[in-house]
């Protein structure tokens, strides 16, 4: 059973992007391999802008690890950012053969 798997709700970025940009999010679950999960389009802005982008549509992005990549044909000034997440109590990754099983319980 995979431990310390997080569900990522959304990401908030403060930025200036006179030519716009792309913000990519990678996670490692399921399967344990870093995979591109979301491609976020940064709108063109010439002033400091803060925007929150959902990561729960169509499903919550999940992973033990998360990685970000920002690309643009011009300049992007990343001024700050944060991500909201929660740890999943019990995450069973069947793609790698994981099984959840209790001990013999006696109530």
């Amino acid at each position: 059973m995979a431990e310390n798997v997080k569900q990522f709700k959304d990401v908030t970025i403060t930025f200036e992007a006179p030519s716009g940009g792309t913000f990519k999010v990678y996670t490692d679950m399921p399967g344990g391999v870093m995979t591109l999960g979301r491609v976020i389009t940064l709108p063109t802005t010439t002033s400091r802008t803060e925007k929150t982008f959902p990561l729960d549509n169509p499903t919550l992005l999940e992973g033990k690890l998360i990685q970000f990549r920002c690309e643009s044909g011009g300049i992007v000034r990343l001024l700050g950012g944060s991500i909201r997440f929660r740890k999943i109590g019990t995450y069973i990754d069947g793609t790698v053969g994981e099984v959840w099983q209790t001990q013999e319980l006696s109530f």
Partner: protein
Amino acid sequence: MGVEYVKLYKKLELDLHTDQPATFEVYTELPQWDVRLRYTVSVATGPGRLPVAVKLPGNVRGRYIKLKLYGAGVTRLYSARVWAKVTGLAEPQAWQWYPVPIEITPEEYSSAALPIQPTEEGYAEAALPIEPTPEGFSEATLPIEPTPEGFGTAALPFAQTDAMPTWVEIPIDPPE
């Protein structure tokens, strides 16, 4: 109640989210005094999180119950509980829910900062490389040879006459 009493298990409730149908198995140690598989069911939730009720056959009983969940896809298990009652007591016991010990998934989300070097809101100040001009004025001496206030002494170009006469020997011839 502990291990000394046999419980009758009627149903389970699972709060979960499966990407693909998963297999849920229930094990107890009675009647063979050996923990064996008593019931198997396929559980699936579709695209989101759902509570799933699993009704057990009427003969699932034991001091112990063991649960197993697995499948080909990802399954997130948020909670599980068992509807059971203690048997074998003179006083009939009521059915009640027993929670299965599962690590809790918080309802709320925490926030973490992205590793972006912070940009200060304000601006710092730096001086331009311009030689500063002092507010007051400095004093400098003009290139004129100074004239002393007093008078100097200079010797006239005459030969010096001694103050005292000097003895001179005059040669006088002796008398013949």
